[in-house]
């Protein structure tokens, strides 16, 4: 029974495809279209990366301040200050047209890096209501200098060990520590 049915189907197929010697590719196209749609909907076009932070352990004691440069980048509401913990403010970069002056920050940090090539650590200190985006942009400019000169783009390391903290207050308390501003 079964063999006769098979034979009949075989005869029918032979009749159907008589004279046609190409493959039936329609099912393959179906599968490919499904694949394309599946991949399109699962595709991710933005890469998420991470920035590592340098936070002290909760129960570690205050470390002894090492000698030399203690670089601080202080982000205030209206300006970015670059300071050394021991000697005070080195440079104040006011906001330009409502935007922080990241180019100026990068430029001055390159100058500092040229003077102190062995220093890797920097503290980024922020006032309370500075948005998160500003923190990330400041960290970027403190970590790396994107050198667009010459062939292609080179990334020059500036101060990759970044700690984050509160900005020191401006006012009487700060004035007594820093000898006025």
């Amino acid at each position: 029974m079964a063999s006769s049915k098979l034979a009949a189907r075989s005869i029918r197929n032979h009749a159907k495809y008589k004279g046609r010697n190409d493959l039936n590719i329609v099912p393959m196209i179906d599968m490919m279209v499904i694949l394309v749609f599946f991949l399109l909907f699962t595709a991710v076009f933005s890469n998420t990366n991470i920035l590592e932070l340098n936070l002290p352990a909760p129960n570690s004691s205050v470390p002894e301040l090492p000698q030399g440069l203690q670089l601080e980048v202080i982000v205030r509401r209206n300006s970015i200050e670059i300071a050394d913990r021991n000697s005070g403010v080195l440079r104040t970069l006011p906001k330009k047209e409502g935007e922080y002056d990241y180019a100026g920050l990068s430029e001055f940090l390159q100058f500092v890096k040229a003077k102190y090539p062995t220093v890797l650590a920097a503290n980024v200190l922020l006032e309370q209501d500075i948005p998160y985006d500003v923190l990330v942009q400041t960290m970027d400019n403190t970590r790396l200098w994107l050198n667009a000169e010459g062939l292609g783009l080179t990334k020059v390391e500036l101060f990759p060990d970044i700690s984050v903290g509160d900005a020191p207050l401006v006012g009487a308390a700060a004035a007594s520590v820093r000898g006025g501003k």
Partner: protein
Amino acid sequence: MALVPFIDMLMMLVVFLLLHSSDVEILPNTKQITIPQSVAELKPRETVVVMVTTDALLVNGRQIATIAELRGDGKQLIIEPLRLALKEQSDSSLRAAAQGDLAEREVTIMGDKGTPFSVLKRVMATATAADYGKVSLAVIQREVEAGAGA
């Protein structure tokens, strides 16, 4: 046969999309928040994710507190519900190898661009208080072209 160019195009599309979906996505999707752009190149690792949206605080997708609550509870630094949630995560989801080693525990913070530093600082302080040694910030990769300046 007229279908051949069509198949060629489909094949190219499939290959292109396959290549672009090759890297596995670890961090959750970020439709509700805009995270900042950065030139950082480190790939995210499998960690506990704390998400700070414009109105809520989530740990691995579960809502812990609202931002309004955080603003309300005054001056204390540690966010207690977040600390408890992080403790719970470290007890359950972390790999056994990382359980004992405090410095190996990691938390990734995904924050909205506009999150004020005061909130972020409290989240970081809480993560440290909940015995997580490493804190990372999630960012979107920025395309930098040569000649754009630093």
